[in-house]
């Protein structure tokens, strides 16, 4: 039996007259990478924002760990185990890699009125940050200033910051954007290693990478889901070939 951690049913989000996502349903289970692909403007990033709680859906319901979270704001969902990374790198460039992860980890160890103890002395946050750095393979860069890292390392740090909050569900918006082949391989290895403990939603344009790492694929066009299934079934789906991959694929 699959361990479904996040599910969304009939999600619709409109921006004035434009329906960005229309009656989209999906579920994310532990141990799987669920990729969402689609052309530009298909509504993939909007879907991630709705799932993460940055945008409220006009219709539909979202369940996290079988609890309805549709009306929860983003910080509450994050504390309940929903981590996300952004299409654009959102690290803190003047802080070290460790400090970046520690700030993220401290979200689970907030001490609103404890002003006397320095942040650097929070043992639980430091441990969570070290764990995330280790998972993301950034141990050698732990003391490095984040802004000085290579692009690929910055993307890894972006994921490490999400991991520092110890999420059970990861929503990754184009984590491979702008990466070279070596960095892509490293990132795919990271995703493969993370999926045992997490349910992962992957938004990605790099089709080779998607078919290498994904266990399930959902294809969106103009805000609607046109296909969903295992990679081989998606590859063979004539509607997907016409709409997205091209007839020649």
């Amino acid at each position: 039996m699959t361990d479904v951690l996040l599910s969304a049913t009939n999600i619709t989000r409109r921006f004035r007259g434009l329906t960005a996502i229309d009656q989209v349903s999906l579920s994310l289970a532990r141990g799987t990478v669920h990729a969402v692909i689609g052309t530009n403007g298909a509504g993939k990033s909007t879907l991630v924002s709705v799932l993460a709680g940055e945008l409220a859906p006009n219709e539909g319901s979202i369940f996290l760990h079988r609890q309805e979270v549709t009306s929860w704001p983003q910080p509450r969902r994050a504390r309940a185990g929903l981590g996300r990374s952004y299409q654009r790198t959102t690290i803190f460039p003047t802080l070290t890699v460790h400090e970046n992860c520690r700030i993220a980890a401290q979200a689970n160890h907030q001490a609103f009125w404890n002003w006397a103890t320095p942040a650097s002395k929070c043992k639980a946050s430091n441990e969570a940050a070290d764990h995330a750095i280790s998972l993301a393979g950034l141990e050698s860069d732990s003391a490095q200033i984040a802004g000085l890292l290579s692009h690929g390392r910055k993307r890894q740090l972006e994921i490490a910051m999400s991991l520092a909050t110890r999420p059970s569900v990861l929503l990754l918006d184009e984590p491979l954007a702008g990466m070279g082949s070596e960095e892509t391989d490293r990132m795919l290895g990271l995703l493969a290693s993370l999926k045992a403990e997490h349910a992962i939603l992957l938004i990605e344009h790099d089709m080779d990478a998607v078919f290498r790492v994904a266990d399930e694929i959902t294809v969106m066009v103009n805000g609607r889901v046109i296909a969903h299934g295992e990679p081989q079934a998606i590859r063979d789906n004539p509607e997907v070939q016409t709409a997205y991959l091209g007839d020649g694929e």
Partner: protein
Amino acid sequence: MQATLRFFCMAGLLGLIALFPLIATDYYISLAIKIMIFSIFALSLQLLVGGTGLVSLGHAAFFGIAAYATTLLSPESGAGNLLWLLPVAMLCALAYALITGALALRTRGVYFIMVTLAFSQMAYYVFHDTDVGGGSDGIYLYFRPELRLGENVLLNIDSPYSFFLFTLGCLLLVWAFLAMLMRSRFGAALTGIRVNEQRMRSAGYSTFNYKLVAYGIAGALAGISGLLYAAKDGFVNPELLAWEQSGLVLLMVILGGSGRLWGAVLGAAGLTLLQEAFQSQALFGDWSAHWHLTFGLCIIALVALMPNGLIGIRAQWRNRRRAYAPLAVSRSEP
């Protein structure tokens, strides 16, 4: 070793500052007190601007409200007691900060600036157009407050020297509190909010609550400077709450350099001294009547020449030397 050296240097500097009133005339003691009061005021705004990334143009409201609270709540026939006067003045400023902050913090960027300005002007007109605080004429504080426990006077700040030391103590306490706050988990969260609020929300921080508490703390700390200002001049009027005052303290933070506590103090000292200098007839003769013009030109020049403020001069100088170093080497080569 370096930390120990720095500690002794700071202690020595503080000792020298504490002895300053013994060699200075009343005018210079008063000027130093004014600088310290504005330093506290600028430090409180630094928490918002440099610490949280909230540029407020209504900070004078908290300063003025606390100054009025001090004056209105002090007895007319004797000195008020600092033991309750200071907390009450801070609470008045804190209350106004929390009420207005709860609304203003729902906006961002230039809208936040405008809303804080509007709230500040609302407070200004309450004191200006009503009899609450003597209208546009203002009101007098006849006795400087003192610290009493029962009938025993623990601290009398009536003399210039004792008031100087009391203000210096307040400045050090505010500094130490803010330094501690910014190093805490709360401060780290504020830093994260300043750099990327969206990231902090996605990590699980309810950023609105953090910003509101920071806004409240900044208001309460500005309240300390308001009380000291009322005690120093013995007179308050609505101009203390006016937008010019908010602009002035914002300029102190920008001129000093935002993001560092030192910047606020340097900015407060620099701007107060410049104001005094340009108003001095001894230095500028008849031109001192038009001091706003020369002061404005000077500010424009300083901001243009020091984009990172006074605090950034050293780094700017170092970068410039580094940039010209290869040129110098290549010139010296045959």
